[in-house]
């Protein structure tokens, strides 16, 4: 499995993104990290070029719904709708269902134990 961990939008907090990237790498997953402040279009392009199976979006600014929708729609528009999108960050519980509706395979709000996130990837439970 290959994963792109990406920071869409303007949010500069990358602790969570890097912790998840470290943990996935330790679990044997191939991980690419985008760096900060990528546009949804840049993330879609990187996901296709790197030929990843999953894109993990990390958003702590509150803009998660718009950014996740843009990435999901962008992947579909480029014929890459099979690439799954998961979202983590400061996600109020009431927004989890909305993100799922927008096409997020899994949502990991603040407080999700790290092993639960790693298991979701390694056991392909996405």
């Amino acid at each position, binding site marked *: 499995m290959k994963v792109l961990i990406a920071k869409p939008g*303007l949010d500069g*907090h990358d602790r969570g993104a890097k912790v998840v990237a470290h943990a996935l790498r330790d679990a044997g997953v191939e991980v690419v990290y985008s760096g900060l402040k990528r*546009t949804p279009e840049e993330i879609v392009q990187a996901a296709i070029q790197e030929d990843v199976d999953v894109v993990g979006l990390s958003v702590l600014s*509150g*803009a998660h719904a718009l950014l996740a929708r843009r990435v999901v729609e962008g992947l579909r528009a480029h014929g890459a709708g099979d690439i799954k999108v998961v979202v983590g960050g400061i996600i*109020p519980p009431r927004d989890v269902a909305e993100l799922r509706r927008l096409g997020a395979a899994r949502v990991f709000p603040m407080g999700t134990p*790290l092993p639960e996130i790693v298991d979701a990837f390694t056991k392909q439970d996405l």
Partner: protein
Amino acid sequence: MKELRAHAGFPIKPVYGPQDAAGVDVERDIGRPGEYPFTRGIHPHMYRERLWTMRQYIGFGTPAETNARFKYLMAHGQDALNVAFDLPTQLGLDSDDPRAEGEVGRVGMAVDSLADMEEAFAGIPLDRVSVSLTINGMAAPITAMYYAVAAQQGAAADRVVTTPQNDILKEFIARGTWVYPVEPSLRLVADLIEFSAKRYPRSNPVSVCGYHIREAGCTTAQEMAYGLAIAAAYVELMLARGMSVDDFAPRLSFNFTAWGKIFEEVAKFRAGRRLYARMMRERFGARNPKSWMFRSLIGGGGSAFVMQEPENNIVRGAYIALAAALSGAQTIALPTYDEAYTIPSAKAQLLALRTMQICAEESGAADTVDPLAGSYYVEALTGEMETTILAELARVERMGGIVEAVKSGALQAEVARQAYFFERKLVSGEIPKVAANCHVGEPVGADPEVEVYAFDPKAVESQLARLARVRRERDDRTARTALRRLSDGARGAGNLMEPIMECVKAYATLGEIARAMQDVFGEHKESVKF
């Protein structure tokens, strides 16, 4: 017996006695409060003469909404402000910039021009209220707007007390609101320090932040070490401009966190104060005792709070307030219990303010100066922290110094590595979190048990309309001329604050001002390492 370690890494013994503090030279290492090396605090009588300033971090939606929240908290006894700006503002993008979509007014208030700052501080006398501005990459233009509003209000320049954060190095390390490459970014930091030192003698033109680096995952000792290294880098920057250290050092200030183990946090600040005093006096030759003082905002630490059973975070906040008070803070700001969900509600802000007030008025923590001094444990810990901080400073030097370590990404990689270690300790339970990894209750459902802030999308429309009106009503030619002068200035080597002030007063937008500099400076390319 279970082995315990400080967050800084060294072991903690079950019992401390006289032998553990035997190496302490009371005169040299502890001294008296208000005297070099300030281990016990920077004022002789601390809170008996002046209580810490209470300064919650506030900002959301439009300037008008934020202004109302300012007034709400001030009506409940908050005596100073700390302004949160939204991400487009922090990155120099106007609210109608395509990159700002979805982010306008989200994590702070939106500011597009001087008109917004006028509205944010309407009815708040800027010659009496001190205001921190959490702004870094855009510190120069936003502080220029603040100075312009103060002047409009008729506040004398020597009565204006503001603290723009203006600490770009920690943005490259931890918080991410950089725009320009490292060197021009440092130039802007120095421009604002120099301009403020000459024209606004009571402003604090930089607040060096260990806080955000700690929030990004580093240890307690690293937080202090990196903060001291950043402060030294700014001092060197100003000395290279030909300023004398005592011309600006009395107004340098610090922003640190205190969410960890209470006694370790206290020891961190006691050690940090004496290391800073020694550095300023011995290494930089400062003669004014005010230049030796580590003046600090302490608090923060949203990373200590958890989503499970969020009301428990109120209790955690009370311990942070206690740790900050025992640490000798000049200002305290607390995270709010709902931060794992979203930005604070008015109720959560008021509870944080009440927590500080209870700590100040009821707990007795403010009754006497540095009450933990002389404790075998705390004096031994202070010594251990000093040793560990010095070792971390030496590591930074081995990375080529703080500026090189930031440019190469080596420091960012170290912070990320520590964040991962920390997370693994949470998973193993070595670092306990009640209701999250021990004493776990029912899982969190779709609705938290607390009411959380809900973003009002109407704020965006109203902000876009205001921006359009400013562009329509201003004298466009004056704004364009000022922006051209700023670009010309950026090509040269002079201080950019005057040309920025001119742009601001002509109602050039923040996005236009940022762009005028970016055309010359270019954009920072992040060295991505994890």
